[in-house]
């Protein structure tokens, strides 16, 4: 292969990449705010005694778990404006699509963590005279929220990576800027390698934190 690497073609054009990274981070942070809060509410609905609340919540979760994220994003971008006559900016649309996907996955994380609290702890709570609300607030949720943190972080970083998908519907994120730059400079190897390093530089520390939290938790639960 006769190809001379020219990293300079990319490093001379870092500014659009940083702009793209800023959009990607904006998508990630906003989607995570939606996912962490709405996901918790959705988990409570999934765990509800009442089928009226539980069944739609479960369908929502299963829809997002059982369809590819790229299909969800494309569907959202094309169908929502046509079906509901709602026109929002591409970044907002991206945030909503990614946020809803993350909401579904985080709801599963919360649900699993809530159900993992040993039933004996609730018995102990009854024996100590705590009311049902006090048992939930003082025994179930503190344990469940702690247990769910590593999964929430993993899901969150997953959304960061998945956010690259919105490039195909025209959101000017890191991936979009990379594609543009690669086309302009005819330097796809250099450009996409550096793009990959950008994603890695953000994801790697977070996954290290997750690993640390899980190790610490493993020690604590023993």
């Amino acid at each position: 292969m006769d190809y001379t690497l020219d990293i300079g073609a990319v490093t001379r054009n870092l500014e659009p990449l940083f702009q793209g990274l800023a959009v990607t981070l904006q998508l990630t942070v906003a989607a995570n705010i939606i996912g962490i809060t709405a996901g918790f509410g959705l988990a409570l609905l999934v765990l509800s005694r009442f089928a009226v609340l539980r069944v739609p919540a479960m369908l929502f979760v299963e829809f997002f778990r059982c369809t590819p994220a790229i299909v969800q994003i494309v569907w959202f971008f094309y169908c929502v404006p046509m079906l509901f006559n709602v026109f929002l900016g591409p970044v907002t649309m991206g945030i909503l699509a990614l946020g809803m996907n993350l909401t579904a996955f985080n709801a599963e994380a919360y649900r699993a963590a809530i159900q993992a609290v040993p039933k004996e702890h609730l018995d102990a709570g009854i024996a100590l005279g705590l009311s049902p609300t006090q048992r939930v607030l003082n025994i179930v949720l503190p344990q469940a929220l702690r247990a769910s943190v590593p999964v929430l972080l993993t899901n969150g970083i997953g959304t960061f990576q998945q956010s690259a998908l919105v490039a195909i519907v025209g959101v000017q994120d890191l991936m979009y800027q990379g594609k543009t730059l690669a086309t302009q400079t005819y330097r796809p190897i250099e450009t996409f390698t550096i793009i990959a390093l950008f994603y890695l530089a953000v994801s790697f520390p977070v996954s290290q934190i997750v690993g640390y939290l899980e190790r610490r938790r493993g020690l604590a639960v023993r």
Partner: protein
Amino acid sequence: MNAMSRDTALVRITDLHKGYGPNIRVLRGLNIEMKPGERVVVIGPSGGGKSTLLRVVMGLEEIQGGAITFAGQPYISADGRKTRIDTEVRKKIGMVFQHYTLFPHLSVLQNLTLAPCKVVGEPRAKAEERGRAILARFGLEAKADAYPSQLSGGQKQRVAIARALMLDPQLMLFDEVTSALDPELVAEVEQVILNLAAQGMPMMMVTHDMWFARNVASRVIFCAGGVVVEDGPPEQVLGDPKEERTREFIDRVFHIKG
């Protein structure tokens, strides 16, 4: 005490029926009258309903028939298909479980003060002071700020007992509290229970440790098939049982001792 027509029993269990699902009947018309100051040890084959009995008395289970009164007050009753439990009466009973059930996200002291602060509304400082005093009595004052994961099984179980005592229970229930412990840690937990017994704490417990049962009990109840088969002082039930089923069970338990 107002003697008149008051029920002198601390716990009166009348015709208690309890099952799990339609086909499994665990307690089949069980009657026990426990007087104040008694220390009742319930023994019997597994599946005989011992732990279920304790869980029912703690108000953790639905029942299908019968009633329980506590210190003369109605406590639990089967009301058609529903179980009526007086939660105020329930607060007078403490329970320690086989698997510690300390809350892992709270320190030892926080485990102790949670219920007094939340249920009774005791000021935190006062609850902590009482908590530290109980821990000191149990030789655990150095562990007040430790987390459950940093404790041995014996220490965890002693903390669980301390936690239950924080609410000044009028009856303590111990459900196989030494069964999950390594053998060398059993004694420290049993000692705490013996000390409580010496102070006159009424208790009802399930244990497989017959030597402990003999030492702590003022009364032993042999429970099998969901009913009380034999009921009497420990020397008699454990040493010279009247009933054939009790004799068989005791023989089997002590067999290895030869």
